[in-house]
C-alpha cells in the first residue's frame, strides 16, 4: 500500500436543528485494520459514518481519501470510491426477496439487459453461505426476524467490492453464533487489506476484534488508542468520562407469587409447546439463538399474534389474550425488539410517543393537558437519562440508543405488573445499559415480574435471576439458580446440545 491511510477525516462538524452533532472531530482508517469507533448513545458515531458514506452531505471539514482531498456528494459516488456501509437501522426493502435486496441497483443482467434472476439468486446464495447463514435467498425480507435481516445487511455490504466497510452496530441483534461467523469474515477482509470501521456497544467484542479505538463523547473527539493497550474498564472510562464498576447491578429480592404462567403454547412450527412462569420480584431471562422463537412467544403472550393452543395464567387466573389492549389491561407490557417499526412513531415527538400507552397522567377533567404531559414525561425521561434537547424533538432525530430509552419510558408510564423486555439493550451504550438494568432492578424491588429476552450472553447471565433457554421453538432448559449460570451451560441448551427435564422448573414455581 502506498498510503498509510485509506481515509482521513479532519475537523468534521455536523449540525442539526438545535443539535451540534459533531464538533470538529477527526477519524481515520488504515487498510487491513479494524478501527473501532466507541461512544455513548448520541455521541455522533453514526453521524460521522453517514458523512463518509455519502448519506449526509451537509458537513464541514476535510476528508482525504486515498491521499486525495474529496468532497462527499452522494451515496453512489462513495460506493464507487469503495465505501460500503451496514446501516445501524435496517434499510431493507421488505417487499423484495433477500437476493434482490442484496443486489438492488446492480442486479446481474443477461446479454439483452434483462435482470438475470438465476445468476442473482446464485450469487446471493454464495454470499449468504460465506457468512454461514442459512437464510433462503428467495425469502421475502418481510418474513425475516430482525437478526436475520441484520445478516442480510451484512451479506449485502460484503457484496460490494470495497476498500472500507463501515459496520454500524452489526451485531446488535445477533447471537454468538452469527457474531462468530462475522468475525471470521472480518479476519478474512483484513487479510485482503480492507479497512473496517466497527461500531458496537458490546465491549467484549471490541476487545476481541478491534485493532485501534477512537472514542467520541458528546460530539467531540476524545482520543485514539490501540485496543491492546486498554482494558474494558478504561474504554468505558474514556467513553462515559467516569469510572464504572458495576456493569450488572443486581438487587437482592425474595421472589413473590407467580404473576405470569404460560403452559404449552403452540404456534405453527415456531412455538412447539412452550411453558414457563415468571414471579414477582424476579428477572426472568430468556436466552436463545437467532430464530429460537423468543420474540414470537412474547408476542403471543401480549396478544400481538394468535396462538394455536396453550394456556396463559395471570396472577393465577386463566386468561384469554386476543389483543394487545387486553394484555395491557391485565397488567402486561411488551417492549418490542424492533423499535423503529413497532415501538415508536418516528414522526411524532417524544411526548406523544411516551404518552401513547397511557395518557391518563396527562388528562384533566377538561381533557388533555400538554403541560401536565410534559411534566410527567420529563420526569420519566430524566429517570433514565434520555438525551434530547427537548421532549418536542421527533423520535426519528434521536440516536438509536436514545430511541430505545424512549420506548422504555413509554412502558414505565403504564405501571404494569408484568413487564417483558425484548432485547432491551440492543444498541445501547454501557452507561445506559447499566441504567436500564437499574430500572429493571427497581421494578423488581417494587414487586413486578420482569421478563427479559436477550441475545447477549453476558447480560443474560449478569442480570437474570432465572434463565430459560429456547431452541427452535422449544424450551430446552431452565436454570433456576444464579450460581449455576455458566456460559457453557446456557450455550449448550441454546444450541440444543443439552436438554433438561422441564417439569423440574415448573415445580419450582
Amino acid at each position, binding site marked *: 500500500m502506498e498510503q498509510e491511510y485509506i481515509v482521513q477525516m479532519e475537523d468534521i462538524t455536523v449540525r442539526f436543528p438545535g443539535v451540534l452533532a459533531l464538533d470538529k472531530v477527526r477519524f481515520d482508517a488504515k487498510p487491513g485494520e479494524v478501527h473501532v469507533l466507541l461512544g455513548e448513545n448520541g455521541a455522533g458515531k453514526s453521524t460521522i459514518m453517514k458523512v463518509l458514506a455519502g448519506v449526509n452531505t451537509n458537513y464541514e471539514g476535510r476528508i482525504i481519501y486515498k491521499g486525495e482531498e474529496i468532497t462527499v456528494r452522494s451515496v453512489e459516488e462513495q460506493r464507487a470510491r469503495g465505501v460500503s456501509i451496514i446501516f445501524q437501522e435496517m434499510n431493507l426493502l421488505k417487499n423484495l426477496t433477500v437476493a434482490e435486496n442484496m443486489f438492488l441497483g446492480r442486479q446481474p443482467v443477461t446479454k439483452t439487459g434483462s435482470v438475470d434472476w438465476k445468476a442473482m439468486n446464485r450469487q446471493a446464495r454464495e454470499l449468504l453461505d460465506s457468512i454461514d447463514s442459512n437464510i433462503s435467498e428467495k425469502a421475502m425480507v418481510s418474513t425475516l426476524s430482525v437478526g436475520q435481516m441484520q445478516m442480510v445487511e451484512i451479506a449485502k455490504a460484503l457484496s460490494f467490492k470495497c476498500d472500507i466497510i463501515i459496520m454500524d452496530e452489526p451485531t446488535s441483534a445477533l447471537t454468538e453464533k452469527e457474531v462468530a461467523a462475522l468475525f471470521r469474515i472480518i479476519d478474512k477482509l483484513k487479510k485482503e487489506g480492507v479497512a473496517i470501521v466497527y461500531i458496537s456497544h458490546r465491549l467484549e467484542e471490541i476487545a476481541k476484534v478491534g485493532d485501534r479505538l477512537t472514542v467520541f463523547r458528546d460530539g467531540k473527539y476524545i482520543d485514539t488508542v490501540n485496543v491492546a493497550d486498554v482494558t474494558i474498564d478504561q474504554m468505558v472510562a474514556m467513553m462515559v468520562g467516569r469510572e464504572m464498576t458495576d456493569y450488572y447491578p443486581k438487587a437482592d429480592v425474595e421472589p413473590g407469587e407467580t404473576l405470569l404462567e404460560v403452559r404449552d403454547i403452540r404456534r405453527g412450527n415456531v412455538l412447539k409447546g412452550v411453558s414457563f412462569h415468571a414471579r414477582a420480584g424476579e428477572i426472568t431471562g430468556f436466552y436463545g439463538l437467532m430464530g429460537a422463537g423468543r420474540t414470537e412467544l412474547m408476542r403471543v403472550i401480549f396478544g400481538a399474534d394468535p396462538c394455536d393452543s396453550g394456556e396463559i395464567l395471570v396472577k393465577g387466573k386463566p386468561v384469554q389474550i386476543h*389483543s394487545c389492549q387486553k394484555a395491557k389491561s391485565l397488567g402486561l407490557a411488551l417492549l418490542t425488539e424492533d423499535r423503529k*417499526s413497532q415501538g415508536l412513531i418516528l414522526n411524532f415527538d417524544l411526548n406523544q410517543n411516551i404518552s*401513547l400507552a397511557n395518557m391518563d397522567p396527562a388528562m384533566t377533567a377538561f381533557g388533555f393537558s400538554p403541560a401536565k404531559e410534559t411534566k410527567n414525561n420529563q420526569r420519566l425521561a430524566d429517570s433514565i437519562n434520555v438525551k434530547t434537547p427537548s421532549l418536542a424533538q421527533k423520535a426519528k432525530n434521536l440516536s438509536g440508543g436514545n430511541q430505545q430509552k424512549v420506548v422504555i419510558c413509554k412502558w414505565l408510564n403504564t405501571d404494569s405488573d408484568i413487564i417483558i423486555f425484548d432485547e432491551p439493550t440492543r444498541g445501547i451504550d454501557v452507561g445506559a445499559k447499566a441504567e436500564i438494568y437499574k430500572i429493571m432492578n427497581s421494578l423488581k424491588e417494587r414487586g413486578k415480574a420482569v421478563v427479559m429476552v436477550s441475545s447477549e450472553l453476558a447480560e443474560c447471565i449478569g442480570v437474570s435471576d432465572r434463565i430459560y433457554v429456547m431452541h427452535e421453538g422449544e424450551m430446552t432448559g431452565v436454570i433456576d439458580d444464579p450460581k449455576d449460570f455458566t456460559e457453557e451451560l446456557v450455550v449448550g441448551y441454546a444450541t440444543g446440545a443439552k436438554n433438561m427435564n422441564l417439569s423440574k422448573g415448573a415445580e419450582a414455581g
Partner: protein
Amino acid sequence: MKLKERKIDFSNMSALIVLIVLCIGLSIAEPAFYSIGNLINILQQVTVYAVLALGVNVVIFTGGIDISVGSIVAFTGIVMGKLIVECGLPDPVGILAALLIGAACGTFSGVMIAKFKLQPMIATLAMMSMARGAAYTLADGQTITGYSDGFRWIGVANIPGTRIPVQIVFMLLLYVLFYYVMKYRKFGRFIYSIGGNEEATRLSGIDVDKYKILAYTISGLCAAIASVILVAKLNSAQSTAGLDYEMDAIASCVIGGTSLLGGYGSVWGTLVGAIIMFVIRNGLNLLNVSSNLQKLVLGVVILLAVLADSLRNRKK
C-alpha cells in the same frame, strides 16, 4: 419524506396565506367580491363541503381515505326524504334515521377495512357504488321535495337579527368540537397515532381496529349531517346529490395541509382549504370566466396553493 416532517399544529399557515392572497387579488379584480354579502355567500356555499371534509379528514388522519361520502349524502338524503315526505314521519325521526344510516355506512366500511383488511380506497369505492345504487333504487328518478319550515330552518334561516345563516354557525361549532376532540381527547391522539404508525400503536395496547372503525363511522355521520343541511337548503333530496363531492372534500383536506399518508394534519386547515376551493369558484363566477376555462383555472390555483405550502416547508 418531507411532507411527514411537520408538527401537528392544528393550523396551517400556508393555506391561510394563500387564502388571504386570493382574497386580496379577487377584491382588486372584482369589487363585488369584497362585501359582507359575498363573504356570507361563500361561507354558506362551503358549509356542506366543510362538514363533509371534517369527517373525511378524521379518516385521512388515520392514514385511510373515504371516497364514499358523496354517495352517502345522496343515500341518506333520499331515506330522510322518503321518511319525512312520503311516510309522514316527524322531522326529528327522519333526521335521526339519516344520521344513523350515514354512520352505519361508515361503520360498514370501517369494519371491512379494520377487520377484513381491505384497502380503504377499494372498500369505500364499493360503498360509494352501493350507496349510490341504493339511492337510485329508492328514489327511482324522483326528487323528493316539500319539507316543513321547521326542517328547512337549518338550511335557510339566519341568526335572528343578523344576516348570518345558522348553517354557518352550526358548521363552525362542529369544527370547534372536532378541534377539541382531536387535540384534547385521547380519541384524537389515537387517531393521529394510528396514522403515524399503526403497528406501534397497536403494540402500545390501543384498540386500533375500534378507532379505525370509529373514524369511518364519523365520516359517514358527517356525510349524513351534510346531507341534512343540503336537503334543507335546496328543499329537495335527489339521488344525484353529492356526485364528486368526495374529491372536493379530499382536496380541501390536502390544501389545508393534511397528509394523505396519515398522522399529520389540522382541523382548521381543512376549513381554510374548503374555503379556498369556494373562493376560487366564487371568484371565477364573479369574474364571469368562461365555463370551459373554469376547470383549468381551478386546477392551476389548487396546484399553486399546495406548491406554496411545499416550497415554504422546503425553505425551512
